[in-house]
């Protein structure tokens, strides 16, 4: 991945509840985004963006398809390399697998640009205002999901896929982690963590054999349960292989690893309000994990998968990180967070070489939730809680 004079080329409206996730579908011009009200849309973008209707704002485009099925917020979107299959996880406790090119089953009209219409209609006559506000929305084809993976009993907030696209990992708020065979749609392994602790992040190594699972209890309300975990697992057998917190806090005795103030102080510095995003590097030697929840720094740790040691801590999103990705060559790590920016850092030395976006909001900024890198690595997209999906061209 190379970055030189990145340009903000699309700002797609996705009004409603928060856009949470975004994925390129095998091409830099086709992308999907999901939101916290359970909707997923697909955009087919033209090769050259048209002129924007609003000054200093990149052009908008309407979606062409809506993927209908989720009944609560979409938490993650993952596309297979060929771009034909999209996988979504949701607060409705299901994982859905979509053939994004499947024959449409219906049509619908959607208005996703209400805030932009309101801005454009400012200072217009009543007639003009009405014409703008009441103009028809976009017509979208609708399709349903191809498969539904069921097995979770609570919100699914963690989803990851192996590099070969054959295995999927998911985790929910009952602290259940499931590794799936994507070809058979069957479970390969599953395991439970502690009661009242949530799986907040999960990732599979490129070969699908090793799993990382981050766990966090929103409230330390139990007597004997440590409120946070960061562990590596054998994804085939469902057996823990390395407790990263033990590596990171070597002076803490095992018997003290409960809900004690002292241990809370120790893991709090490393995990903050829980690790909410995780991704293995393309060669599988490093793991990037991000501190989430509302926290001061929202740092990204780069962890040596073999030793479990933190090799480097890079970047930092004021008020918390949301998502993390490696470039295909493993040289760069991209992260998004609650500061309305994507930070691009060099893995080798941790130096931040670029930021996409700029802070927006008052004391607390809007979030860039999920991020995606196009297959050709020329574009990066972000889901923005302000009801937008942004696309940057990395070399303009």
């Amino acid at each position, binding site marked *: 991945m190379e970055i030189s004079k990145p340009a903000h080329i699309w700002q797609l409206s996705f009004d409603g509840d928060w856009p949470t996730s975004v994925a390129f579908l095998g091409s830099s011009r086709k992308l999907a985004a999901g939101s916290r009200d359970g909707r997923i849309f697909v955009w087919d973008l033209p090769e050259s963006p048209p002129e924007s209707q609003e000054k200093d704002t990149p052009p908008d485009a309407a979606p062409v398809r809506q993927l209908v099925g989720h009944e*609560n917020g979409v938490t993650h979107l993952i596309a297979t390399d060929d771009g034909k299959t999209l996988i979504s996880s949701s*607060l409705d406790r299901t994982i859905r697998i979509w053939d994004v090119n499947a024959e449409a089953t219906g049509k619908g009209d959607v208005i996703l640009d209400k805030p932009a219409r309101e801005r454009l209609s400012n200072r217009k006559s009543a007639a003009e205002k009405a014409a703008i506000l009441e103009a028809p929305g976009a017509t979208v084809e609708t399709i349903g999901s191809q498969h539904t993976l069921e097995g979770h009993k609570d*919100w699914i907030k963690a989803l990851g896929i192996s590099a070969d696209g054959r295995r999927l990992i998911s985790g929910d708020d009952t602290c259940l982690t499931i590794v799936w065979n994507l070809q058979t749609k069957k479970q390969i392994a599953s395991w439970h963590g502690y009661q009242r602790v949530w799986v907040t992040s999960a990732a599979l190594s490129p070969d699908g054999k090793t799993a990382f699972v981050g766990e966090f209890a*929103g*409230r330390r309300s139990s*007597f004997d349960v440590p409120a946070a975990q960061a562990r590596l697992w054998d994804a085939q057998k469902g057996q823990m292989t390395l407790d990263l917190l033990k590596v990171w806090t070597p002076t803490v005795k095992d018997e003290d690893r409960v809900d004690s103030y002292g241990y809370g102080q120790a893991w709090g510095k490393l995990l903050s309000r829980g690790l909410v995003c995780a991704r293995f590097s393309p060669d599988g030697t490093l793991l990037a994990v991000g501190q989430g*929840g509302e926290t001061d720094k929202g740092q990204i740790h780069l962890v040596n998968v073999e030793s479990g040691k933190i090799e480097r801590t890079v970047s930092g999103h004021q008020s918390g990180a949301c998502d993390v990705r490696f470039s295909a060559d493993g040289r760069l790590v991209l992260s998004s967070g*609650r500061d309305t920016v994507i930070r691009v850092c060099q893995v080798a030395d941790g130096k931040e070489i670029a930021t996409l976006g700029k802070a927006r909001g008052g004391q607390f900024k809007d979030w860039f939730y999920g991020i995606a890198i196009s297959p050709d690595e020329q574009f990066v997209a972000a889901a923005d809680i302000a009801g937008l999906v942004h696309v940057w061209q990395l070399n303009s």
Partner: protein
Amino acid sequence: MNSNCPINEHLNRRSLLKSSLVTASGASLMNWGGLFSSDAHAAEAGKKNKHCILIWLNGGCSQFETFDMKIGRPTGGLFRDISTNTGESRVCELMPNIAQRMDKLAVIRSMKTSQIDHPGGIYLMHTGYQETAAVRFPEIGAIVAKYCGEKKSDLPNFVKISSNGNAGAGIIGPQYSPFSLDKDGRLPTFSESYLATPIETRRHGLRDFMEERYAKAHKAEPARMHRESYDRARRLQNVRQAFDVDSEWEKYRDRYGNSKLGRRLMTARCLVEAGVSFVEVGQSGYDTHADNFEGHKSLVPTMDIGWAALLDDLSERGLLQDTLVVWMGEIGRTPRINNRSGRDHYVRSWSTALAGAGVKGGIVYGESDKDGIDVKDKPVTEGDFFGTVYTALGINPLEENYAGVRPIPLAPFGHTVVKEILA
């Protein structure tokens, strides 16, 4: 002034004479207006042997994530509703246990109160009054201790477990001040004497002797308060075993949920069973300006299990009919979800709930509008709420205590008791 609890229901002839004589003798000179008040009324209320457990949701629990969901509306949030055992009302999916006990609850969905921030809200929802410099209003716990408590009991009549009331006993006197346990419901370490019992007893005797001489010469209130405090501390030593609930916790741990809050709630049941008239149990963390949904998801299920277990446990022991369980915090939370995925403070429309002590179950009182922005029907102010709570406990909310010569009713002037939820 409006109440469904006329004074003649709470004052018999003997009490009237007793009160009159005390006043006539000048024993309560500054309390000259208390002809119908204080001890005589307290004795009457006390005979009813009512208790109260307050489950205090510190920080302000969201009505949208508990009893007043707005599914499908922009203000609705991420949770879904579930059916209840009354077949009519629906509650948040985070409360499956309480959903099956809605027949015991009266939920008020139309709270409309006047203090939007925490200190003011905590004061307001513990006293019924806004804080002023002129009057030290007593907390509900102190009032219940005075009017329902057993005066001769060695147990404190007002116990707090990890909770946040900030008003104390105020004008009704230090003998009704709260006794606070630690966050796990255990006696605080300072409550135990470091001296052997015979030595401690001798010290008490000596102190009594000295203080009695002093008190004869000085009629000052601080002297009385000092003696009262020592006396209470000494008497507490007689009943320490009432606070030792370790073995009980082993039996009931699963039922109440293996959590700190569960243990506090079980301790509250034990104390009520032992005779304590008011126990306040706190659960903190509801001030979810950020990550409201995760925040409530981490708090409400623990509370749901513990609260449901408490209701069952009280019911099975025959205590629920005389024990009012109050569920509330100081404020509600905003309909609007902010850019921290949080909800801020809100008092234009929020929810509380009552159970036991003659409160009708299976009732949802009042209604908010479609987005939960305002009360649509039957608003309940803090005064109305306290008037209703006191009435359920057999305490006349019009009963007055005195700040100097100024009469202060238990519930503010102008309140309306919500009769519809009282049996």
